[in-house]
């Protein structure tokens, strides 16, 4: 099952599973097994934005006037988000593209990862603006214990999948001795790693970003760091779409029509899925504690943020058919929702219309009635 960039096997793509079928040959969208991924691509493209479009110059003054403990909150969140998007900008491509079998899903994965690279570039845009020494901020990411702990859990499932794919595509199923080390791989085990990986990515996009989002919007509620909040808003809009993408993948896998083995794996991995959610929620609560170690910010403290983590974890779990694990049922920071509404996203001051418009979209429908009141 070696990977090939253009599979010569003539196949019916409509009969391929999402993953581990034939590698994709022709990128065609005239027929689609799962039209939803094409719709997600279109939506993502309509969301296109560039960090440079957002003026963050006022943030520099705001940042300089922040008390030290609030500077810590702001900059730590940026570092953490930089880590998350560093991973997300490359990993979906590296992990999923060698095993994907549907053209619309393949293109969705590429579109998804590309938009994460825009997020990464926007962090540099923000940091350059608020700091005269941006290198210090980025250098610290690789030294910060609190961030590195999270990196471990964010990347573990990706790395296990990628490692397994490499072995499988080179040597096939079975036990292999490579460089003196014996490793066993089966397609079933790979599918298990894939399921857990998608689950962990789903958790990353569903929960891990939201502590940072809440802090960014809490600053902006006080009319501070508003340029940053505008960018975070655009990022949050993209992330909501990516989350929908992984939720669709998980639900298609669990339903079993696509690949009956995946349904069985989804059942077998249920305990582990709960554990991934629980651990991520605990880590994010720890992160909240780290953020507020020197003091809270107006409108937000450790307890409120932890309640929000619980609330959002519950809602994300229910979306993929799991049961809520926390007693919290109320959103402790309802004001965050208005920051997450897509229509309110405004990228430029002169732009009054909604920003999700499709550039160059023309109405080509013309009929006789359009000339009804036309006189020469």
């Amino acid at each position: 099952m070696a990977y090939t960039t253009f599979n010569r096997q003539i196949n019916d793509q409509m009969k391929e599973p999402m993953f581990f079928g034939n590698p994709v040959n022709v990128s065609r969208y005239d027929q689609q097994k799962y039209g939803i991924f094409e719709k997600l691509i279109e939506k993502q493209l309509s969301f296109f934005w560039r960090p440079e479009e957002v003026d963050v110059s006022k943030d520099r003054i705001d940042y300089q006037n922040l008390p030290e403990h609030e500077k810590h909150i702001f900059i730590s969140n940026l570092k953490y988000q930089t880590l998350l998007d560093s991973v997300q900008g490359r990993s979906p491509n590296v992990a999923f593209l060698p095993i994907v079998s549907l053209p619309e899903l393949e293109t969705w994965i590429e579109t998804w990862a590309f938009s994460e690279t825009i997020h990464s570039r926007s962090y540099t845009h923000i940091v350059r603006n608020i700091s005269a020494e941006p290198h210090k901020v980025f250098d610290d990411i690789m030294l910060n214990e609190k961030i590195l702990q999270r990196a471990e859990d964010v990347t573990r499932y990706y790395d296990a999948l990628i490692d397994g794919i490499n072995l499988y595509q080179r040597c096939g199923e079975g036990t292999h001795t490579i460089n003196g080390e014996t490793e066993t791989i089966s397609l079933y085990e790979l599918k298990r790693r894939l399921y857990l990986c998608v689950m962990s990515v789903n958790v990353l996009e569903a929960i891990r970003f939201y502590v940072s989002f809440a802090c960014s919007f809490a600053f902006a509620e006080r009319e501070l760091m508003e340029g940053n909040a505008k960018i975070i808003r655009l990022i949050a809009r993209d992330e909501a779409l990516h989350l929908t993408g992984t939720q669709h993948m998980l639900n298609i896998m669990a339903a079993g029509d696509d690949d009956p083995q995946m349904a069985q794996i989804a059942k077998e991995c249920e305990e582990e899925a709960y554990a991934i959610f629980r651990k991520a929620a605990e880590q994010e609560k720890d992160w909240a504690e780290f953020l507020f170690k020197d003091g809270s910010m107006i409108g937000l403290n450790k307890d409120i943020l932890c309640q929000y983590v619980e609330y959002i974890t519950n809602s994300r779990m229910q979306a993929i058919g799991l049961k809520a694990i926390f007693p919290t049922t109320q959103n402790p920071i309802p004001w965050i929702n208005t920051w997450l509404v897509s229509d309110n996203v405004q990228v430029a001051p002169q732009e009054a219309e909604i920003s999700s418009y499709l550039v160059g979209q023309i109405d080509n429908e013309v009929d006789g009635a359009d000339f009804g009141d036309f006189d020469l």
Partner: protein
Amino acid sequence: MPSVKISGGAVIDFDGSRRTLLDALEQQKLDVNFHCREGYCGACRCKLLQGEVRYLNEPLAFVRKGEFLPCCSIPLTDIDIEIP
């Protein structure tokens, strides 16, 4: 004018003065989670116990059988819903 029964209790009329079911629920001061309000995030997912809704724009979010998104739908018939 279709009516909307919420969690077996309060009943409101969808009189068309609000664009979507979510708007109508909020007007009644009912707490519904929401993010995008465009059907792609799925945060407002509610249970549809009885009746039918029509989507103003087809939702991109995953919607399970027996669920619906109030942010981009209107009732077609009298409906019975549950807000999580």
